């Protein structure tokens, strides 16, 4: 079973994942209620607040920032080259 990177979030992740997969296969893929996936949003909020804490602890939030910066840099370089 794929775990959360933070053990303490496993339970919350599991609940959200199950909800998401059900919503995705039974509703989204069938074109029912594509406008929202709210039915999992409460579960996601709980899971996410646990996860965000863990990302901060491990310094991954900074890696994510770097990746965003890097993207901007690359986009600028590619756009510049195309001229």
């Amino acid at each position, binding site marked *: 079973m794929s775990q959360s990177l933070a053990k303490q979030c496993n339970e919350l*992740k599991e609940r959200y994942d199950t909800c*998401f997969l059900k919503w*995705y*296969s039974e509703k989204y*893929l069938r074109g029912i209620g594509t406008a929202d*996936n709210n039915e999992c949003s409460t579960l996601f909020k709980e899971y996410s607040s646990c996860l965000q804490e863990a990302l901060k602890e491990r310094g991954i939030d900074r890696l994510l920032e770097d990746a965003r910066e890097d993207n901007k840099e690359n986009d600028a370089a590619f756009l510049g080259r195309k001229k």
Partner: protein
Amino acid sequence: MVLTHTTNHTYSHPFPTVTLAFFLRYCSPQLNPFASHVLSTDTISSHVDPETGRLHTTRIHLKKSRMPPAVMKLLPTSLTGGGAADKASYILESSVVDMREGWMSTESRNLNFVGVLSVVERQMYVAPRAANHASGGTTDVETKVVFRSRLGERIRDRLGHPSSAAATTAAAPTDSASNHGQQDGWLSRFGARGVQRTIESLASTKTQDQLGKSREGMRMILERLRQTGIIGVLELRKMARERSMEAV
């Protein structure tokens, strides 16, 4: 310094099932034995754009080092932090699914080791327009991988920015002050450009092997979905989880 590798593949499964398999592909080693190197998977964000009906998802995976051993051997331990060959790397995956138009685009990139090698994999899954309904539908996927090594450039950056150096080496704590000189000397000996090119081509070769395995894993999940449907997959996932809890 950039190296690009593109491949095309057709799954003999309908588009919706393939997108579901994409989300499920790391969910359990029972379902996908080719995913045993994936240590964790987390969802950072997931939302449906109310205007387009597109589902945007961002996930982060932790994988046992994808850095090829040959690349690790090339690098001095001062840069890799010694045992970094068996260290894990974080992969950021973003995906967009458009069920109405019948496509899914994905992008995966490594978050650490980017100073040595950045690998960006982009995939475009499409339901063929003239889908043959008699055959149950197929899905085409184009995979494009871009390798980029900025070894020398990054180290020069780090020298100028001690605070960012601390951040990037945080995962592999080394005595950075004494290492900078060492790295610089090592790079100029081999020529940064040559090393960059070698790293890119080594990584490219390894990734081509890996692509076959990831396809094989997708196929196993697709077969399982065909046999038991999503409910069966969720059951199996639950059972596997309970078993692993007992083991702990």
